[in-house]
């Protein structure tokens, strides 16, 4: 990926014990009991979610997984997309950067 500043922090799910979800086709519906909210994730956000369920990850790490699944190279755009997803997760209390 390019040299412009990317988020190098490690991200993790918030209060994962309170999560319940379904995956139908490639859509995810995630209930988060900590926030009481229900989230609708598309395939990309769902993949990020699945990775974070398994382990905390960086933007680079997540982009690499996505690229591997879609069989495309890791690019700046992909990194930017991942950052966008994580920012949204942060807003809704699904994930946060680790201190």
């Amino acid at each position, binding site marked *: 990926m390019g040299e412009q500043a990317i988020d190098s922090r490690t991200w993790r799910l918030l209060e994962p014990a309170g999560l*319940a979800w*379904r995956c*139908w*086709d490639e*859509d*995810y*519906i995630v*209930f988060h*009991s900590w926030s*009481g909210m*229900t989230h*609708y994730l598309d395939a990309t956000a769902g993949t990020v979610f699945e990775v974070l369920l398994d382990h905390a990850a960086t933007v680079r790490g997540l982009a690499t997984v996505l690229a591997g699944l879609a069989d495309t190279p890791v690019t700046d755009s992909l990194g930017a997309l991942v950052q966008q997803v994580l920012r949204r997760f942060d807003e809704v209390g699904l994930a946060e950067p680790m201190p």
Partner: protein
Amino acid sequence: MRLGAAPESALRAQFHTTGVRLRLAGLCVNLRTDVPAASDQILQMYRDHPLEAGVGIDDFRVWLSYTDPLRRFVRRRIQVFIDGATPFEPMPHRFAYVSIEGALNWCISATAINVVLHAAVVERGGLAVILPAPPGSGKSTLCAGLVMRGWRLLSDEHAVLRPADGRLQPVARPISLKNESIALIRQWAPDAHFSPVFTGTIRGDVAYLRPPTDSIARATETAAPALIVSPTYQAGAAVALQPLGKSETFRLLAGNAMNYHTTQRCGFDTVAGLVDSCAAWRLSYGTLAQAVDAMEALLARVQTGSASGRLAIATA
């Protein structure tokens, strides 16, 4: 004892004093009013409903009255209260019964244990069909059409799901119909009993259809959901049945729920369980007859265990 079997004068007096207690969807609602237009219609429309005798514990106390002493005589306005507070603006006196129905809608939706979806529910042959749709989609019309052709009415407004077993709790209240639907159903079912037509409401003309006595008699009999069918009416459209994806169905149900957020994890599990276990369809139709036929055909296929998948219904 049915409301209709009790001495009318005693009931009228009761409306003014201790209130008339109705059992609806497993709840007990106490209705008190000094507005004869309201009590008259309640006695008509809930004639076949069981009357709770004596004194007991009520889930809600509904009170409908004139907004102030003067309003009893001049430019009469009424307002409904539920346990001392009101979700509704004062209304012209002629909408007294409409206010009662609005208050009862509120009471049914106010549960936090059962999961209440905004949908009609009908049942036939032991299989219940949930008909979720936003307002104006024609679900009440279709619901009325089916019910007047022998389907059991659980509700035209509220799919009440019990989290413990996923079964549907009947409500069996009068079906509210609007505008053209009123004449349509009058034609469809000439023997049906309607309330007067209330003109000039926010939604236009509104009238209520009294449910068949059988639906009311079986109001304590829960039903297992088997199908989800989202109706879309469009004049002149060809009838078509298309499968709905599960995530789309979840969004449709939870997005049109009365208390999804209040029920938290339980709400999620109940709706997800429903989506997991039921096939879901979108039914487009142009005439009531088409829609009723399509529903009957769909139900027959489910009963004979036909594989789900694309189901093409030939246009008439």
